[in-house]
């Protein structure tokens, strides 16, 4: 395929940048690891605040869109709209013009958008809806762990995927949340590392032998949960150091935004390319709750989308060839009202949009059944109706991409779409 040749060419050009041979050796060694048993990686990106799906994945082919949003609608890709018009995808749907970075993903067959997808719960509370989507149990409160943590427990470790020298329990960096606090989606019994930045995952002491002594304190032969965690932690530090993330340079053409979100995606790429055995990664980004002054082709939402798509685009470019083994999944707790409100924005809605990005997605089409925007087709007379349950998408990805045979344990109480029936077929 053309795409593959292009990326291989890109990889070779690293040599011409004059990087130190030892770095290349390390990187090359790291790149060789996945070949033993291609470890798959899932990156989940959560847009917190309910992103306005109708202006992200624009249904310009539906006249109801324009009558509902006289000031907020994005123009069709018609020539007259120029740079303010939607980026055409399939003649009915388009992307918000600020998402120019997604256009090459679509053209290269890496992008699978899904519309009218989300949670069947009627709640319009951010707090509850995020909880439901992260624990995978809509309308059930008190689920103690996140669905991704359950995945880690159910799947078990892939011994051959972990880098050489990793402890017997698998890589300490099997699951990483690039955030200050452990997000709900990864909360639970399985081991997950939450870090704000890779550089933070270190002993904070310049010089001296504090680190050696601290490690020694945890290796005095005691075996209990404290000593065990300490030993694991020092192992993790070694794994990370061997990967030498300090020397990291993104692939040519991968320009990450300077925003916190952009830098988080950069670090996820770092971890993947360093071969630390990353299987599940998570990052979130806020600022989507656009009740007021959301703007149309330009404005608040546009700025958010530009940063978001530029960051994801850079990540895909940076990962290059590896995208065959990577799936990026974007989601948000719900969408927003079809109609614009009285303050230049939109309010909490129901169904939303997701993007599944990867080397093996079924692209060229917007997935999901479009329910329409006529009054009688709306949910509670105001929101985009739901035609795909988010658990169906999550199940398909964990099954077809991550190889989990039975996904029923991930979504207790979910009866629909298991075992391939009713899945959208996002992963071809």
């Amino acid at each position: 395929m053309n795409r593959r040749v292009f990326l291989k060419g890109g990889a070779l050009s690293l040599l011409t940048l004059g990087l130190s041979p030892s770095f290349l050796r390390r990187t090359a060694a790291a790149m060789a690891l996945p070949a033993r048993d291609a470890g798959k990686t899932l990156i989940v990106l959560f847009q917190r605040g309910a992103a306005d799906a109708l202006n992200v994945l624009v249904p310009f082919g539906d006249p109801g869109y324009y009558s509902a949003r006289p000031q907020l609608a994005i123009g069709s890709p018609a020539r007259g709209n120029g740079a303010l018009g939607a980026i055409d995808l399939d003649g009915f749907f388009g992307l918000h013009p600020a998402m120019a970075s997604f256009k090459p993903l679509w053209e290269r067959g890496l992008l699978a958008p899904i519309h009218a997808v989300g949670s069947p719960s009627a709640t319009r509370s951010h707090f509850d809806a995020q909880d439901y989507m992260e624990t995978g149990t809509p309308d059930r409160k008190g689920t103690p762990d996140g669905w991704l943590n359950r995945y880690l427990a159910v799947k078990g470790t892939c011994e051959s995927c972990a880098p050489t020298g990793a402890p017997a329990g698998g890589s300490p960096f099997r699951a990483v949340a690039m955030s200050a606090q452990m997000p709900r989606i990864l909360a639970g019994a399985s081991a997950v590392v939450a870090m704000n930045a890779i550089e933070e995952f270190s002993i904070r002491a310049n010089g001296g032998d504090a680190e050696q002594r601290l490690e020694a304190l945890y290796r005095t032969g005691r075996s209990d949960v404290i000593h065990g965690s300490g030993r694991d932690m020092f192992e993790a530090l070694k794994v990370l150091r061997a990967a030498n993330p300090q020397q990291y340079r993104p692939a040519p053409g991968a320009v990450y935004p300077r925003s916190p979100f952009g830098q988080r995606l950069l670090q996820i790429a770092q971890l993947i390319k360093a071969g630390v055995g990353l299987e599940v990664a998570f990052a979130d980004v806020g600022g989507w709750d656009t009740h007021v002054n959301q703007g149309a082709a330009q404005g608040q939402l546009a700025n958010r989308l530009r940063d978001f798509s530029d960051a994801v685009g850079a990540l895909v470019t940076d990962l290059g060839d590896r995208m065959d083994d990577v799936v990026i999944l974007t989601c948000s707790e719900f969408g927003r009202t079809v109609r614009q409100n009285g303050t230049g924005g939109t309010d909490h809605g129901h169904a939303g949009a997701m993007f599944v990005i990867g080397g093996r997605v079924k692209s060229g089409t917007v997935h999901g059944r479009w329910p329409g925007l006529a009054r009688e087709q709306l949910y509670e007379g105001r929101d985009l109706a739901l035609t795909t349950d988010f658990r169906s998408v999550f199940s398909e990805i964990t099954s077809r991409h991550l190889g989990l045979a039975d996904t029923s344990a991930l979504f207790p109480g979910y009866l629909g779409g298991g075992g391939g029936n009713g899945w959208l077929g996002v992963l071809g």
Partner: protein
Amino acid sequence: MGQGPTRGTGRRGSRRVAGVAVMACAFAACAGGMGSRRATLPAGETAPAHGALREQTVDQQVQHVLNRLAFGARPQDVDALRRLGVDRWIAQQLQPEHLADHATDSLLRRYRTLAYSADRLLAEFPPPAVALAAAARRGDGPLTAVDSQRLRQQARQSVQALGELASSRVARAVLTERQLDEVLVDFWENHFNVFAGKDRTRYFLNDFDRTIRQHAMGDFRALLGAVAKSPAMLHYLDNWQSVADSGRPVLQPIPPQRAARRAQAVRRAVQLRGATSEQMARVEALQRRRRGLNENYARELMELHTLGVDGGYSQQDVVEVARALTGWTLERGAQGGGFVFRPQAHDAGAKTILGVRFPAGRGQEEGEAVLDLLAHHPRTAEFIARKLVQRFVSDSPPPALVARAAERFRLSRGNIRETVRTIVTSPEFFSADAYRAKVKSPFELVVSTLRALDAAPDVTARTAQLVSRLGQPLFGHQAPNGYPETGEAWMNTGAILNRVNFGLTVAGDRVPGVRLAQWPLYDSLRTLDRPAQVDGVIRALLGGAVSSDTREVLISGRNPFLAARGGADVLTSLDDADSTYAPDPMTPAMRPRRRGNLVGSASAPTGLAQIVGLALGAPEFQRR
């Protein structure tokens, strides 16, 4: 690699904290000094049960009560407690109302908004969305840059105001003389977890904190009732908007004029959004249909607050309890106000809960009766007793002690003080197994550090943010089950790295209020040789008993254990670059703000400071 037993994927492999190495020497010496029996005790004080042996030595008991019934020892505490006697100290702590607490009184006066009611907080620090909407309504057209700036500043002040409560939780735990009471406040605020990030809940937290404090060592039924009526809990678990399902008889039907007025208000609100008459009719129909029962609080009331998840209630019971609690709401709904009972919302039908019949036509007294039923249920006694024993004694609560504590709870009709007394004067409490067997929560770690180093209280939110960064943002636990009471949950790779770094941060004088030079022991230790310094730090910070391996590591850096196994990978030290990322944008979830000096690294501490930093990061200091 010379590492310990292999670990499976899940971290559920139970690892009992044996404490054997520590106990070996202590136990041998134990035969001599048993307990601190006194010939006579003043009335109301406790003595060990007749003939019951305390496995811990006197010195261990002193350390033990300071770690379990207080938030760790301050430099002067060990000697003072030894003189007073453990039993007398416990008796005093069980009567906090008789303990003067001037330090806390002075501390509280230094806060500005802590004493504010929810209404005042809402008025002075409105939520950004409200301020924004008000601004949008006032002005015409989009917000100016000045408006945005003002709103951002308001949002910042709002966050600051709410940070006072978190700050006060830490500072009070450090300062108060009423340590056991404060431990119970921590326990109950976790048991009755509320999440500050949910909508307006955070405005109600000052009042919630006061409510818990009022009842922390009192009567469980009173505590339960106060929490049930607290705006924080009513809001957090949605009961304020739970009303009788349509079709159910309500206690008092809405008078027709009121219903008409309300319908008109809804119509006006919908009109503002420019809806057509068809859409308006649809919305109104939906409004009527959607209102109904919310089971959230009823379920957690039984599952988490009283009976426990295996407490023998059914889904039907949850529905019936929810029905009984309809109408328990807030004066001004989402806008707050105090508790009010609305008969128009109350489901007046007959109910059966846990086999007990509740006849039709009852009002607020019905909900009260349900709380009575739950508070005095034998399963509740077991559940509460078990959690208390878990907090005070062991992650694996000894069944015999749980049974005795549950019995005391039942017989005393939910007297928290007496139940706690039973637990903390028991032989199990003073057993060898219990000694240093619990893992400190991040809150306990930070507070015990500040107490050990005699730090000045921090009335800013920075120290509370440290607790947050260690994994336990106060009022920041999203799910109603609260933070875990067991150690395993706190021990993971990232968490222990944060704790180790916390120790180094403290030793580098980068924690507010902590100056190593002001530590009372600093001057006397500074001039000694290293082994003597290490012994001093071990005595002051680690309870005086560590393994010889630990002592050796602290003195020389050599690890005899690893040396005996033929050496191990010794890491060379590395330089860490300072972090340069900007703070995160606000999201609906709580996010701690990052401070430069707590994120970047400084040069490693040396000498005595290094010993302190290592000791604070050591496994032994993670224990209580």
